[in-house]
């Protein structure tokens, strides 16, 4: 019953009115594109939130682990830091981030070592590079340009037993080697610093007028913008070049046992008011605060997501209705315009069904063409469309310190991650929806056409 004739005629009829079909197809195409791109925007949003929550969890776990491992560690700093929870592996706050670096004399090391219960004292010197850099940060409250030291110099006491027992050096080496006891005139640099400077392992760099050889590169954590660029070197080298011989800025005090920690911390705090002391308890407290903050952030993100989903759902409904209406009106117009033709077809023996299927097919055909256009528009314009149509709510509070690299705004996240994967399934689904809406929209016009009285229709001019 269904032979190719109907399809051929549908094609010819559709191609007969090129401009109209073109306009309709563009309009439909946009509706389709909206339908295609919004879900993908939502999915990428969801993925972003999922990823975020995973990151948080693993981060918290790592920190928990680190705190447990370093329960005997008492950190003593000459500056307060900036609220950054310490205990994060090498996540120490960049000293000199607009802060003056204070030093204490190395003699303190021996004094602390003599306190009862102290096992080891590892001394560091943390100071800023001479070079500074200006960076513009985009925040919802406007752009800020900040000037900060280009990188941090960390001088480490390269004692092999320290290196072996405590985590005082980065471990994630990506090129070259780590620092070892006896190293001098060499540096270990974070990858974001070597990227910035454009140097590789074996190259020489000038620091405070002295030349150092890069022996190793470690993977820097966090985003480029927020992550600290760091150069590790022997503490004596650092002292020499910054004319700080005999000075240190940080002491990692290791107790014999956890039970000694409180006592040692008390003694140090009483004796050296210039030192800021943190123990595992402080770090745990910090961690709890952080967890709470993360929790709030996640909840915000989730509520934003559900809000976005509601809006998206409404928009899809509107797009579906609009598509059907466009098809409906186009086909109604077409049927009206071709009344005479319907009369002729009926006079020469077309059944109601023949006429109806003819017009249904044309409606579906237009929708399918629009589906192709919609997919095309969707591929090109999905990021724009979804960032235009989905609400711009800040998923994650920006300006929150302590969540390095998470000052992400959802629009940015969307526009980065929305790509429509052209898998056959999506295509098929889009075509299915197109065909369905075409059928839906042309149902009534086609039915009306089939009901036209042939005599009336023949008289119609």
């Amino acid at each position, binding site marked *: 019953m269904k032979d190719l004739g109907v399809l*051929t005629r549908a094609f010819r009829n559709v191609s007969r009115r090129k401009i109209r079909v073109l306009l309709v197809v563009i309009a439909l195409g946009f509706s389709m594109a909206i339908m295609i791109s919004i879900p993908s925007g939502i999915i990428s949003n969801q993925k972003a939130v999922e990823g975020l929550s995973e990151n948080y969890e693993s981060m918290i776990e790592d920190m928990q682990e680190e705190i447990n491992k370093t329960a005997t560690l008492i950190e003593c700093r000459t500056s307060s830091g900036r609220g950054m929870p310490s205990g994060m592996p090498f996540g120490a706050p960049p000293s000199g981030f607009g802060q003056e670096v204070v030093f204490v004399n190395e003699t303190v090391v021996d004094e602390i070592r003599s306190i009862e219960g102290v096992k080891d004292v590892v001394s560091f010197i943390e100071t800023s590079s001479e070079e500074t850099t200006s960076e513009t940060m985009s925040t919802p409250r406007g752009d800020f340009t900040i000037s900060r030291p280009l990188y941090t110099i960390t001088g480490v006491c390269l004692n092999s037993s320290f290196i072996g027992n405590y985590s005082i050096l980065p471990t994630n080496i990506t090129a070259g080697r780590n620092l070892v006891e006896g190293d001098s005139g060499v540096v270990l640099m974070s990858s974001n610093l070597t990227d910035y400077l454009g140097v590789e392992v074996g190259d020489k760099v000038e620091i405070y007028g002295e030349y150092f050889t890069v022996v190793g590169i470690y993977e820097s954590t966090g985003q480029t913008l927020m992550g600290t660029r760091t150069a590790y070197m022997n503490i004596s080298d650092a002292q020499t070049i910054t004319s700080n011989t005999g000075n240190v800025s940080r002491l990692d005090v290791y107790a014999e046992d956890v039970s000694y920690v409180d006592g040692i911390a008390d003694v140090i705090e009483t004796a050296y008011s210039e030192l800021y002391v943190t123990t595992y308890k402080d770090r745990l407290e910090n961690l709890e605060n952080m967890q709470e903050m993360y929790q709030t952030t996640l909840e915000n993100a989730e509520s934003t997501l559900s809000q976005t989903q509601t809006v998206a759902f409404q928009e899809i409904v509107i797009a579906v209705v609009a598509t059907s209406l466009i098809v409906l009106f186009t086909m109604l117009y077409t049927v009206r315009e071709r009344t005479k033709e319907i009369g002729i077809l009926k006079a020469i*023996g077309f059944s109601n069904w023949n006429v109806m299927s003819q017009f249904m097919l044309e409606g579906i055909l237009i929708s399918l063409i629009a589906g192709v256009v919609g997919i095309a528009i969707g591929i090109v314009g999905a990021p724009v469309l979804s960032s235009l149509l989905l609400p711009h709510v800040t998923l994650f509070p920006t300006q929150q310190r302590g969540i390095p690299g998470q000052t992400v705004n959802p629009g940015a996240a969307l526009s980065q991650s929305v790509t429509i994967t052209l898998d056959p399934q999506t295509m098929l689904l889009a075509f299915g929806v197109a065909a369905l809406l075409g059928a839906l929209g042309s149902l009534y016009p086609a039915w009306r056409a089939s009901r036209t009285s042939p005599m009336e229709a023949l008289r119609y001019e």
Partner: protein
Amino acid sequence: MNDLVLETEKLDKVYKLGGRKVRALSNVNLQVKRGDFISIMGPSGSGKTTLLNMLGCLDKATYGKVILDGVDVTKVPEKALYKIRRHKIGFIFQTFNLMPYLNAIENVELPMEGTKKSRDEKRKRARELLKMVGLSEREEHRPHRLSAGEQQRVAIARALANNPAIVLADELTGNLDSKTGYEIVRLLGKMNIDQGTTIVMVTHDSRMASLAGRMLFLSDGRLAAREKQGTHLLKKELTCPYCGKEVQPDDTFCPRCGKKL
């Protein structure tokens, strides 16, 4: 077997026009035998087209019967009428009414849509019909590339596609010049003789009407009692009885010998 292909009994049609009843047809009793070539003549508004619509199952009678090939079509439900239109009736219109987006052969194939014929059979039949109307060379041409006469030929081929019991022609020469109109009616007559096609032709053009076998007259919705024998020129080629020269049906004098015909 009944020799009547089409028969109407006391056919009435009343239209309502703005609350006013207009009697378009009144008590029409028409009998068409198989193989007839009938022309129905009448001035505009006499109800010719109404009658034809009634015969073609395009319109419902107010009263009376229309028996087509033994079936009273006034009793056939609207939904099933298409079968009668498709298989029993061939329609030819004044304005040709070809589908502009289909070429000649596709237009001829159109009524065969939905029949049991295969694609090849349809194509074969359409080709045959186009050959019959002398348009073998123009199968692929769309209507806008055909002359008016050629378009009407395609329409005739289309009307014959399903081998209908009767062909109904509504002013088929109305949009043609007289020479082409003559050729078209002549073609119909040829079909009538060669294939035995039954034809009812409605026209207000007396010259065309006179080419049929029987001429009926319709005025004010009534079929006149008088009936005229048409020349039906094709049964015997119209020639001058004096000199044997072929003459036009509307010639009063022989163009060669000048004698009154």
